[in-house]
């Protein structure tokens, strides 16, 4: 494999090396929707590292025995920020016992807050949540005859994403619906880690097809042993 010589070579050996510098109490974004497109290798490494008191930002909280459920089981999460947290009994238990805090955000607002965190837009108005609990004490304003709520951009200490293809400079291409929150989150980490199924030398990916330009990615590695578990297998007949 031809690697970049200097610091543009963002390749690290594995999830352990990629997570260098992560600390208890940090805020971490995890790409994925349900179990689709989640950074499996880094989640496992975080369990191994035993990092605690994490604030996790992810659309969902995984299931009991997979995805972010693995961090839950080890009590490594202090707070979960998500749009939907079903499918997880341990989550339920920790929430009811008060061990875990949860902040629920409408999915589109969550995606846009992350996108805008990465895009240097500190605040913006959306219609979602107006007149609901989500509005809370937020500023509201009418535009074009419709009420809107002021939401803020969101970043994280680490953003951990998963892509199908990546190159040594951090350019990423996602597969099908495994793009989901990975694309926006890749832009919003102070440090963004990408784990990929196939790592190729830079220059091999078509520059017209890059979903996440390498500028957003600080560390990248080729993951191993992807399980890619399916939450609900539905088939024709």
């Amino acid at each position, binding site marked *: 494999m031809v690697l970049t010589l200097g610091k543009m070579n963002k390749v690290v050996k594995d999830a352990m090396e990629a997570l260098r510098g992560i600390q208890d109490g940090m805020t971490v974004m995890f790409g994925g*929707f*349900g*179990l*689709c*497109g989640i950074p499996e290798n880094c989640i496992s490494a975080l369990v191994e590292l035993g990092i605690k008191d994490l604030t996790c930002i992810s*659309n969902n909280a995984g299931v009991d025995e997979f995805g972010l459920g693995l961090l839950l089981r080890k009590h490594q999460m202090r707070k979960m920020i*998500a*749009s*939907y*947290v*079903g*499918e997880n009994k341990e989550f*339920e238990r920790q*929430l*009811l016992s008060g061990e875990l805090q949860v902040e*629920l955000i*409408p*999915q*589109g*607002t969550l*995606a*846009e807050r*992350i*996108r805008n965190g990465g895009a240097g837009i500190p605040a913006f108005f*959306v*219609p*979602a*949540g*107006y*007149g*609901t*609990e*989500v509005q809370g004490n937020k500023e509201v304003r009418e535009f074009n005859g419709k009420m809107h709520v002021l939401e803020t951009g969101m970043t994280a200490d680490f953003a951990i994403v998963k892509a*199908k293809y990546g190159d040594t400079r951090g350019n990423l291409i*996602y*597969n*099908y*619906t*495994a*793009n*989901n*929150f*990975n*694309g*926006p989150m890749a832009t919003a980490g102070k440090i963004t880690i990408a784990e990929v199924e196939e790592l190729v030398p830079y220059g091999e990916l078509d520059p017209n097809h890059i*979903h996440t330009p390498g500028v957003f990615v600080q560390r990248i590695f080729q993951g191993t042993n992807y399980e*890619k*578990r*399916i*939450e*609900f*297998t*539905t*088939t*024709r007949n």
Partner: protein
Amino acid sequence: MALDKNGIAKRIAQELRDGYYVNLGIGIPTLVANYIPEGMDVTLQSENGLLGIGPFPEKDKVDADLINAGKQTVTYLPGAAFFDSAASFAMIRGGHIDLTVLGAFEISEQGDIASWKVPGKLVKGMGGAMDLVAAAKNIIVALMHTDKEGNSKLLKKCTLPLTGVKCVKRIVTDLAVIDITPAGFKLIERAPGVSVEQIVSATEAHLIVEGDIPEMKI
């Protein structure tokens, strides 16, 4: 006779128009996809980043990277496009989706909808529902007219935490098609064999009934 879930889905399918882009929620709304009229070209959007949802895959074509918003494995149709979640909700919020069909616990005569939270029960989250109801041009709600104890779900005011305010345009229940007008609920159609009186008595809020109310053609 009151409609079953498939009957509700069938009736909602009649609201589709050629060329529509449609987001179908989980539950009864998902069933609408089974009743898209022959020859009508409707594109289904899944808010996790797919425009052009196809049927469930053959057993050997299941792909973990290809799911719908209900996290079920799906396929994509020719002419589909994939995109990230921010782009997906930009599409929804920007009013580019013609129709959203979703379920609910309660609907008020103002068009408010409650669909995500029951105090005292575990809250799973609103997912994309608040974004969808706040932004779709046209929102149809599919629900049973009453709960299992016979309490109406069509209320003067919602009792549960809201998902959105003044957004629902039309309701299709097991008993009726009802529009939300500035004056409140207005009866449009009856389920086959269901009387106006039955519908009125199953509706807590005032129901506007003008002239003869036709039966649904299912």
